[in-house]
């Protein structure tokens, strides 16, 4: 088994290393299904890349909650994410689910990635003219936001 199922890296992810390592450490664990999702930075709106800030303590709590949820179905979740700058056409995010049979992993990868988008304490910036510009329009307020507002 891999020991640390949440991996954070400075800069772009080495997709082949990460997926190979995950697969090689898990294929003897009797999971019949391994489903991965790899997110790659797209060339759009004339950006030079993306950049990320992460708040690790709450990300870890969120991830551990998902691991508990997966465990109840005999599954595991894995995730890797970049901190800092990631150029175009490189990966900033990988997630995966392993389960005894395919249906649980196929369903859970969708729920896991969607909840990640809504709940993970990660902030995204476009890199434009070498400056970081907060991707405000693409960001979602977390649950119970605005408690201290007017």
């Amino acid at each position, binding site marked *: 088994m891999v020991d640390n199922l949440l991996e954070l890296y400075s800069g772009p992810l080495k997709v082949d290393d990460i997926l190979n390592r995950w697969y090689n450490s898990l294929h003897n664990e009797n999971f019949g299904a391994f489903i991965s999702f790899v997110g790659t930075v797209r060339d759009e709106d004339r950006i030079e890349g993306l950049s990320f800030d992460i*708040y690790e303590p709450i990300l870890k709590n969120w991830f551990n909650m998902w691991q508990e949820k997966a465990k109840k179905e005999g599954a595991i979740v894995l995730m890797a994410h970049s901190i800092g700058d990631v150029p175009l056409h490189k990966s900033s995010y990988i997630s995966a689910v392993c389960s005894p049979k395919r249906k649980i992993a196929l369903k859970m990868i969708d729920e896991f990635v969607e909840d990640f988008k809504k709940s993970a304490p990660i902030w995204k910036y476009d890199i434009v003219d070498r400056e970081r510009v907060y991707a405000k329009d693409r960001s979602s307020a977390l*649950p119970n936001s605005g408690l201290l507002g007017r």
Partner: protein
Amino acid sequence: MAIVEFLGPINRETMEVDIANLSELKEVFKDDKEIQEWLENSAIAVNDTMVSHLNIPLLSGDKISLLPPVCGG
């Protein structure tokens, strides 16, 4: 003294505040227009646990985090 940290794009240094309850933080920021804008859509955590109301007593050394809208991946 509790500590307030501003996460992600809220570009502010961590500050110390002398408050006994989370709701008193509203008073601390009442004249700070820039932070007011962030507060409208930021979530709050106390000691790394997200909160759903402001009726939370604070002890010295407690950490309050402001989390603006997120976008991972």
